[in-house]
Each structure stands twice: as C-alpha cells, then as structure tokens.
C-alpha cells in the first residue's frame, strides 16, 4: 500500500516538474546510450549550476551514470516494480562487479568476451564482435555481439552478470547514432567483420566517447525487417516507394511526442534516478578508478637503461 502511495506521489511530482519543463522535456528523460541524446546531455550539463546544493548527487555525475550504467535503472513498468527487490538486485550486481571488471561500453563498441565453457577447447571461449544490442535491466541485462566468422554471421548473447564470464575487453570504444544495430544483419558483411586477434585501439584518457557516423551499405532485398520505415541514421539513404510513403504518413503519430504521460510511463523519474545512483555510484566510481590505474600500469612500459 505504501509502495503504491509513494509511486503515486512520485507520479504527481513528475507531472508538476514536467509541466515546468514543457519546453525542455529532455530533463526528465532516461534513454539508452545513443548519440541522438548527446545534445540533450550537453544541454543538461549547461544547466547544472542551477541545480540546488541539497541534491543527493551532482548533476554531471548523474548524467554520466545513467548512460554508463543504464542497467542499474529498473524497468519502468509500474506493475513489475518493487522497491525492495530492486535494492537487492542492485546489491547483487555490486557483488558481481567486485569480482569482475565490467567496463563502459555502448552499442557500436567492439568487445572481446572471454568466458568459461564446458564444451570448448581448454574450457575457455573467446569471442570478438560488435555490440549490436543492449537490453534488460538489473541482473537480466544482456548484450549481443556480432561478427562474421568463415563467411557466416554469428551472434552471441551474453548476460552481463553471468558468473562464467571471465573477462570483458573493450577493443574499440565508440557509439553509433542508432539505438540498435540489428540492421547489420542485412548490411554488407564488411561492416560486421572483425578479426579475432584485433588489437585494442586506445582512447586518450578524459576524452569523450566518439560517435562513429559511418553510413552502412545494405544488401539487396529481401530483408529481415522493413528497415526503410525505421528512420535509421547509420544507413545509406534507402528508397521508399510512393505507396509506402503514403502508408507511413497515414500510420504516423505526430502527437506522441507531446504526450507527457507516455514519456512518464516509459522512463524512471529523475528524482528516483538520483536516489538509485547515490546508493551505488560512489562504489562504482571507486571500481572505475582502480580499473583505470590497472590499465595505466599495463600500458606503461618501463624504459630500459641504455649504455
């Protein structure tokens, strides 16, 4: 009963805050890490001096956390929410993160995952591929890697908190302008081919994550989905027939972008995000710092005394 009451209160507060920010609705938005939200991020960063000192968490840290650790935010579906379960789930995630280093990565980054496998040679399997999808939240969060091996497209889905995963390496850290890269299945094979012995491409420390705005060439039809209707940004322009244009215009819902309640139901309110991240962020930050230190140690080669 108390849960529903607090949720209702939260709902009301959010309506009020949403009304205040009708012009700039990006403030209360939580979206997965896509580059289209980068501008929104920038806008928020500009606004940070306005945020009050009584906040649980500084605004830039929150803005970063919600894109780097999106799986810590629960499913916004109201019927499935339970605050205690979410708390326990978070503590379990932290337990796993103390054992294994789960780095920052996005859809479009190239990863190498080493995992224990009973049937593999030497009981270890390593797979390199581009991350084409990230989904789920909490312990169910998972990602899909795609690569082309012996001219055959291969995709493997990994659970992020699976205890059989030994190591996750980010070989190339970058973003793409789309939320999901499922269209790579119907694109030319060179866009999803990565050598299994690929060398990691280092990114200078403190630099922002680059957005790769490559335009992918698609194969000829038939496709697995109607990509021309999806409004993809990372694909070369696709031809749409006149008939489909008319149909799309008829099916369009231009009013949805003004629907505050729709937005609310799809997202976790900003205040709750703050509460969630203030619980785990300090430890996450510590883990990240130790990871950076280790990385620097690895990269640094001791100079040899000459003569």
């Amino acid at each position, binding site marked *: 009963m*108390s*849960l529903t009451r607090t949720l209702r209160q939260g709902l009301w507060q959010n309506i009020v805050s949403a009304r205040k920010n009708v012009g700039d609705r990006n403030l209360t938005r939580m979206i997965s890490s896509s580059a289209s939200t980068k501008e929104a991020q920038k806008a928020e960063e500009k606004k940070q001096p306005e945020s009050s000192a009584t906040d649980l968490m500084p605004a830039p840290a929150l803005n970063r956390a919600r894109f780097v650790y999106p799986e810590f935010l629960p499913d916004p579906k109201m*019927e*499935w*929410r*339970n605050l*205690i*379960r979410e*708390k*326990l*789930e978070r503590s*379990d*995630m932290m*337990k*796993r993160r*103390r*054992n*294994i280093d789960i780095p920052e990565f996005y859809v479009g980054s190239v990863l190498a995952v080493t995992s*224990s*496998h*009973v049937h593999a040679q*030497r*009981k270890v399997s390593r797979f390199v591929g581009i991350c084409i999808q990230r989904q789920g939240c*909490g*312990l*169910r969060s998972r990602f899909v890697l795609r690569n082309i091996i012996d001219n055959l497209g291969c995709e493997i889905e990994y*659970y992020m*908190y*699976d*205890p*059989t*995963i*030994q190591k996750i390496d980010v070989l190339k850290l970058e973003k793409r302008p789309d939320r999901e890269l499922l269209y790579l299945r119907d694109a030319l094979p060179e866009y999803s081919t990565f050598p299994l012995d690929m060398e990691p491409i280092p990114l200078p420390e403190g630099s922002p994550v680059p957005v790769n705005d490559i335009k992918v060439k698609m194969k000829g039809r038939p496709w697995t989905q109607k990509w021309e209707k999806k409004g993809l940004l990372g694909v070369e322009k696709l031809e749409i027939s006149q008939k489909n244009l008319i149909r799309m215009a008829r099916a369009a819902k231009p009013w949805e972008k003004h629907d505050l309640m729709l937005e609310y139901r799809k997202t976790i309110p900003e205040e709750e995000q703050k509460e969630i991240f203030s619980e785990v962020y300090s430890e996450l930050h510590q883990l990240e710092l130790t990871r950076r230190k280790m990385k620097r140690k690895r990269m640094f080669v001791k100079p040899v005394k000459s003569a």
Partner: protein
Amino acid sequence: MFCIRRLASQVPNNFFFSRVSFIGTTQSLSSQQEGAALPVKKRFQFPSTPKVRYPLWYLKQERVKYNERLTDENKAFIKEIVHDKYGPPAIISGIPSYQLNSPLKTEPLARGEWSTATRRCGLIARKIGVYPMWDKKGNQFLTTLLQVVDNHVVKYIPPEEYKPILRVNRYLRPNKYGCLIVGAESMDPQNYTKQYTGLFNEAGLMPKRVLGRFHVSPEAAIQPGTPLYATHYRPGDVVDVRAKTVDRGFQGVMKRWGFKGLRATHGVTKSHRRGGCIGGGSKKAGVWKGKKMPGLMGNRMRILKGLKIWRINTKYTKIYVQGPAVPGECNSIVYIYDTILPLRKTYTKPAAFPTHYPEEDEQPFPEDLYDEEAHGLESPTIFFEEEK
C-alpha cells in the same frame, strides 16, 4: 479463502440458529422434549451438519472512514495510545510495521515430537518479482522472490474444536489436524472494524491485513503471538505455493484452452479465432458437459507444487523459489506450504520445528543462505578444470 465476503449482520437472525454456526464456537443443540410417554429406541444418527458455516475470521474488515472531527491533539493522543499498546512504528524486513512488545502473554505451548506424519505450519508471503540465478556449473535459471512480510500466529484451534467447512462427518474419521490462523502485514487498528481487531486481542497483535489458515498436526502447534520468519524453511527444501492466478477476464477458446482456431484463408470468414463445432450428431446428442468454451479466465486459487528453495535472505525475509511460474501478479499474496509430493518430501525432521525461533540460536544467521548447488554472486568467477 476470502472470496465470500458476506457479513454476519446481513444474515437474518433465524438463519443463524437454523443453519449457520461458527467454527470454534460450541453449539448446544436443544435436546428432545422431556416427558415423552413411551421411550422409543431410535436409530443412532450423526448430528446434522449445517450446510453453511462461516469461518471465525469472516468478518467485515475495513471500517467506513467517516469524518470524526477530531482535533489534532485528539489524533495525537490516539496514536500515543496505539503505540503504548502495540509498540512504536518500525520498519521490519523493509516494510513499515510496528515493533511489538513481547506479545506472548502466556507460557508457550509445549513443543511436540516430530514424526513422519506431522504437518507443519506454512507462511504467507508476497510475490515480488522474478530474478535469474546461476548454479555451480554455470547454468542460468529463473527464480521467483517471495517476501515473508511480518507473519504472526494469530490463533490456534485444536482438532477437537475445529470443524472445517468442507467435511462430511459421516465418511471421515475424527479430525486429525488443528487449525493455525496466521496473519501478515500489521496495520493501523483505526482503519479496521471493532470485530476484526477483536480477533487479534487474545494474541496481543496489531490487526493484520491478510489472514490465512493452515491445517497442522497438534504436535506442530505454535503459540499465538509468535512471529514466523523466512528461516522457517531452509535452502534445499521443497515447497508448494498456492495463490490466485492472474485475472484475464473473459477470454476466447484460443487463449483460454489453447484451441487452434480456424484457418486464416481458404474462404474462412469472421471465424479465425472460433472454436468450431461444439457437439456431435446422432447418439452423442448435443453439447456434452464440461465442453471447453469461452469464459472467465484466471482469478482462481491454484497450487504450484514441488518448488525448490535456492536462496533465503534473512534480512529482508525473502525466499527464492524455483521457476518463474508462481501464480499471480507481482506484489500479490501467496501461501507457502511444505510439499505434499511423496518423492520430493524429506522424511527427516525439518531444521525448524515447529518453527524457527531466532532468539534460541547461538549465532545469528548470515544475511544470505544459499543452496549447495547455487552460485552466490559474491563468490568468484566459475572456471572449469581441463581434463587430462
């Protein structure tokens, strides 16, 4: 269990004396008229059982909240009295409740000896979500989280006094099992009726939002007022879970019974999701009883049997049971029992009998208890050894 919400006050007075009696109350039947002239030997007959017998706890629960025009001082005074009587508000296993001050008024019941025929008490819990877990071999499986919220024993009715509703005395031997009424989730007594709060007076408890009854052997009886915890069970135990399924409303045969429907093409019009023929001709004559047809689906009590407990959280009193298929929606109430499946049952004395008393432990339990086969996420990554 609580589906009949008929009020005692709505039933006419004569109805009470003719057909209705309450469980746990003694009903004196008037003996035959005295002074009969000739003693005729009558055949022995069992006393007729009333057809409708409401359980003791079928009372009107919530009170009409009319405006009582209390001043703030009065309200504060009432609150003070409530806290004096029942204890200050506290957060118990993550849920706002009340810190009861020693509800045990009398000496605890003598604890009986366990035998293989003993039936133990169960728990009332809330289903709060589905969650993946991994075993030591690295296999992933889903578990359902059940939170045991603030459970207390409210009343114990011994088998001699207990008369269950669905019982035909003629065919059964004397009652073996007593009745243990358990309540969950303490609430503010101001929101409940006088009769309903009266149920909890004897045990010295706050009124509970949810009540349930468990049939227990007399040796497994528990003193009213005793709290029940998730550690009533241990990881590795097998339980049955009873709950109301998700209410799906009026559904067609395809969803309700899994019929195939008719074809999408080939001249089928407007009957793609219909069931087709419902009766045969000639001697079969018409629609048979029990024909699967459209209708209300879900919202029925169902028992899922044989669920293994993988993990127990003692801090938030949570039980992680096998599988995602526990009936009911998220945040709905479920009842947990020891399993009745003969091959899954353990025929040894359970670790907690009649229930777990944490004050008797030498050392407090750790926060998480895992099954032997389960992999806790705090333990290191799973590696498989190479064969030589």
